[in-house]
């Protein structure tokens, strides 16, 4: 059974259509790249899955349920923005996650903090932007969720940490769980992807298995993306 299904999912903001009737489903155990240029609807899609926006039309179902309290228990979400209360310490956030998510593995989070050299007693206010992103990603990946929705997880960190994070993503999650990674840094995420979805102006232009793509088109996802979204030169 699919972990995520959307049918004719549409979101309009006034006269702007951010998502234009997209339909697809994701099976358990897949790592999916949600790829597209800025403004293609990636973040809107992820917000709809989290119940942070209400669809204008169509539906999105997670484990056959509409977004709500029950889906939030099984979805681990990394937003683009930092959502910390600045006055908290890193360990306060661990306690917060332990309190609210029964699938949060605090010991694993502590272990990941240690390997990235972040002190649990550090005040969040004192952390750099990149370190805040790392802490947020650790909190999200230390949950044993069924579906991970990662919005630009590697945007603000250096390449070494980027590798660690991608390694964490493929290594630490439960093999039955699915991961959706939205990004435009395709070359970096390509090695971990099972399938890709290309979004363009709120529509799906491609949804394919990565191996099939490579065989059929004889191109890497990165090359294909550059081809698909080529900007016209004068």
């Amino acid at each position: 059974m699919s972990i995520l299904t959307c049918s004719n999912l549409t979101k309009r903001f006034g006269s702007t259509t951010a998502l234009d009737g997209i339909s697809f489903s994701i099976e358990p155990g897949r790592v999916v790249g949600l790829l597209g240029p800025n403004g293609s609807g990636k973040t809107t899609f992820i917000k709809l899955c989290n119940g942070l926006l209400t669809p204008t039309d169509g539906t999105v179902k997670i484990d056959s349920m509409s977004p709500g309290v029950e889906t939030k228990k099984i979805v681990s979400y990394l937003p683009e923005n930092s959502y910390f209360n600045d006055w908290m310490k890193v360990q306060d956030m661990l306690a917060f996650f332990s309190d609210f998510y029964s699938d949060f593995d605090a010991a694993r989070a502590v272990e990941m903090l240690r390997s990235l050299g972040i002190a649990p007693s550090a005040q969040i206010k004192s952390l750099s932007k990149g370190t805040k992103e790392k802490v947020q990603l650790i909190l999200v990946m230390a949950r044993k969720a069924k579906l991970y929705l990662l919005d630009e997880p590697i945007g603000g960190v250096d390449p070494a940490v980027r590798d660690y994070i991608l390694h964490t993503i493929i290594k630490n999650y439960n093999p039955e769980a699915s991961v959706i990674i939205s990004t435009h840094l395709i070359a970096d995420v390509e090695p971990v992807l099972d399938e890709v979805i290309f979004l363009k102006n709120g529509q799906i232009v491609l949804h394919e298995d990565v191996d099939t793509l490579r065989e059929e088109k004889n191109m890497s996802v990165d090359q294909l993306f550059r081809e698909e979204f080529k900007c016209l030169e004068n």
Partner: protein
Amino acid sequence: MLGKLMKYEFKATGRIFVPLFSALLIVSAVTRLMGSLRSTAPHVIGVTLASMLIAAAFVITLILTIQRFYKNFMTNEGYLMFTLPVNTDRLIWAKLIVATVWTLVCGAVVSLSIAIMSTSDTSLLHIFRSNADWSMLTLDEGLFSVELIAIFLVTLLDGILSLYACMALSLYFNKHRIAISFAIYVGMIILFQILAVIAASIISNANISINEGLRVFIDTHPNGTVHMALLLALLIIAAVGAAFFALTRHMLKNKLNLQ
């Protein structure tokens, strides 16, 4: 889950309120001591400082009530709060209960501070002491007290919920939400004033014919009539609060659009 939400709400607000209220009580005690020692200059400074702290206590209570809702729900922190496995009602209740508790604590601390500093016989403490024999209250007086306290509490909830509703309504707009919330609040106050004037003029101009049975009831049960009037008032105030709550919930559930 409500308990956990409230725990974090108390943590987030307590780190400001606890030092503030402690400072006020300490300054009041020191001021009282200086007064007893007939040390004029320190006493005057103490009274000035305490007065400033009292003003600050009220202003900060109001600002934190607004800021906790706005920042936690309508800015980036909303990404965390609205993806917790908790329903929207509980999120609002946690904020509402904690804000109400702090407002009551603020009132109590300010009263206590004034009582500590007052040296004359008319001090608040004296008033409480002289009326301390609560067992003398009749049943009716007891009921009136309960009704008035209930009206006071529900009015306080209304006040806080009206702030929440105005902020939530600003979700219809993508920019300048703080200014828009304020404008909505002012507009709402004006609207309520107009409604009150209209209602008052309708009632005073209407030829209300009270039927004989009701007149007899009022004459023979004057206390009962007041009880009923108070309960009616309580119901109306509670209905207004429920409307603010429903509006806030609707906006947060369906119109949320975090930037």
